[in-house]
């Protein structure tokens, strides 16, 4: 790669968006063939939101996400092998096969959970921010949640707590226009989720969620505020998910209107590629990244496939710090 300095991070944003896109395309394909059990919620279309936000964070900052969990850890820099292995329920998975698609959380990258209970991440993020503050560290905690999640009491309580205590937290509402099948306007009162900020006396920011640089800038400002002890910010990324709520469900939950094509026309990766090319990055370099990422994904899948399933005893580990005893009759038939 021949581009240096600031361009490096631009390239990195592009690479991470590509990673998410390609990782998920592969996951969706093998899920359709039954290789991945459980539900699969894809992030395609929303890559700029996750990557822009995470690129504004340091490695040692914290991040909490949700059920749509493939994007956030990759955006924060997680390695693909343990993520893919997790999707396949393997012992080498990032959660040792116990979390699966909705819970791809890599604590090594500062992730403190991709929690599939809608809205439940907000108090956790507030708490991580509190922990950082009490330890005198200048780390921040960022929480991703959906437009639908904004209706949950947990999100309100988390934001109020962070605001009252001026915690170094950033709340990023990824408004992808739907909660499951329900259009945002049918479930979320008020014009913008970001409008809620004023009620907590904190800044509320709306940003184009298809523009990775814009997202990064908005989050960076919030991060700076947070590190300076000025408290939390609520940022709403206006974005769109291409797939259905969960993929491969056999029928469409959310019939799309004509805006679907408009959104496809504002694909965050295509847009960013164009911007990079306009800034002088060569198409060949970008193609090389695409290809390298394809290699990473293929490698992750081979790794995952070759990995073993967890031993039965693993089911009794990590309930507590101590391993649980295994009942004889259960063990006898495992």
């Amino acid at each position, binding site marked *: 790669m021949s581009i240096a300095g600031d361009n490096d991070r631009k390239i990195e944003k592009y690479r991470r968006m590509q990673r998410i896109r390609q990782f998920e395309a592969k996951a969706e394909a093998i899920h359709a063939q039954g290789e991945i*059990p*459980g*539900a699969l919620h894809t992030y395609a279309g929303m890559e700029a939101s996750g990557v822009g936000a995470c690129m504004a964070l340091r490695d040692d900052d914290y991040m909490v996400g949700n059920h749509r969990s493939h994007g956030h850890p990759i955006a924060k820099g997680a390695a693909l092998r343990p993520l893919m292995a*997790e999707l396949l*329920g*393997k012992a080498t*998975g990032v*959660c040792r*096969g*116990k*979390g*699966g*698609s*909705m*819970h791809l959380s890599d604590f090594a990258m500062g992730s403190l959970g991709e*929690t*599939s*209970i*809608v*809205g*439940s991440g907000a108090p956790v993020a507030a708490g991580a921010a509190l922990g950082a503050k009490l330890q005198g560290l200048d780390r921040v905690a960022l929480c991703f949640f959906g437009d*639908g*999640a904004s*209706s*949950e*009491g*947990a999100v309100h309580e988390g934001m109020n707590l962070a605001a009252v205590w001026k915690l170094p937290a950033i709340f990023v509402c990824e408004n992808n226009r739907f*909660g*499951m*099948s*329900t259009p945002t306007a*049918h*479930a*979320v009162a008020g014009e913008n989720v970001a409008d809620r900020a004023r009620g907590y006396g904190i800044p509320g920011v709306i940003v184009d969620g298809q523009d990775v640089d814009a997202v990064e800038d908005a989050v960076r400002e919030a991060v700076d505020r947070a590190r300076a002890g000025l408290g939390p910010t609520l940022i709403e990324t206006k974005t769109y998910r291409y797939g259905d709520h969960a993929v491969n469900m056999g029928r469409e*939950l*959310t019939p799309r209107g004509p805006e679907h094509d408009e959104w496809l026309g504002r694909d965050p990766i295509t847009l960013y590629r164009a911007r990079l090319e306009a800034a002088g990055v060569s198409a060949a370099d970008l193609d090389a990244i695409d290809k390298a990422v394809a290699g990473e994904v293929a490698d992750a899948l081979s790794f995952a496939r070759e990995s073993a*399933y*967890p*031993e*039965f005893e*693993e*089911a*009794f580990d990590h*309930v507590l710090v101590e391993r*649980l005893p*295994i*009942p*004889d*009759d*259960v063990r*006898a*038939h*495992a």
Partner: protein
Amino acid sequence: MAKATYLDAIRQAQMEEMQRDERVFMMGEDIRCNVFGTTTGFVDLFGEERVRDTPISENGFIGAAGGAAMVGMRPIVDATISSFLFPAMDQICSIIAKSRYIYGGQARLPLVLRSCLFYGNSNAAQHSDRPYSMFMNMPGLKIIAPSNAYDMKGLLKGAVRDDNPVLSFEDSTCWMNKSELPDDPDFVIPLGKGDIKREGTDISVIGVAGGVNVALRAAEQLAREGISIEVVDPRTLAPLDRDLILQSVRKTGRAICVDPAHMTCSAASEISATIVEHAFHALRAPVVRVTTPDTHLPFSPHIEKPLYPSVERIVDAARRLVGAVAPVPA
């Protein structure tokens, strides 16, 4: 009479009751798009006012069902997956279960709160809860947990007509099971009455929800070994038909409680405690629980599946109880 699935029994029950009584209406997340197939065609039949998609705010809309019930409506709330009852625990326990009592009978809360037991399908610990025993410890709620389509239809219709708040726990392992369903619009199974699903003489196996079907399969196999199993299905967990359970155990002298929930403080524990308290002198062997052990449920199917009550575990327990094999050391 026509054969239909457990899921369709839910649909039929809801449809018939909404047709019968216009105070009945439904709300829940994404019920118009009808994720699991229990509200097919409902918007066309009943309109958007009576079939309401809610914001994702379980405490809010379940509490709102309580408020609507207090002013004369009869809501059916679809909370989809039982794990999503936790965010609503306060409105369920503090408002819905207690308002009638704390206001000395002034309030009446006829409402049905449905949710499914979504386990065994690799959706990991946060989606796989089977929390009915928590609600059994809370007075003021009725609880149904049907094991087949016939009971599902009759009990759900009974629940909608009941003047108390009723929680309906719908076992997703039963979703595709079929029964002949009566078309009589007044087909109702009264809450609180259990059912003998199979008669037998050696051991009473009391099953909870999907546990009943595992017990029935085990009974088949044991019959071939000459062990005669009586399968008791309480169907309603609150009020629990203790008399039926005791009657069966007084006859057989042995009991196994099969419950897909975690063992500690489970419905199985309650049934066992009831038996030893009230049928002790009839007992010829320990009362055994076959439940999910007290671990969380993992995503990986490989290690998830063996955790639930299985035919094999019931068969083993039965053999031990009749003395066909040596008992496990306690």
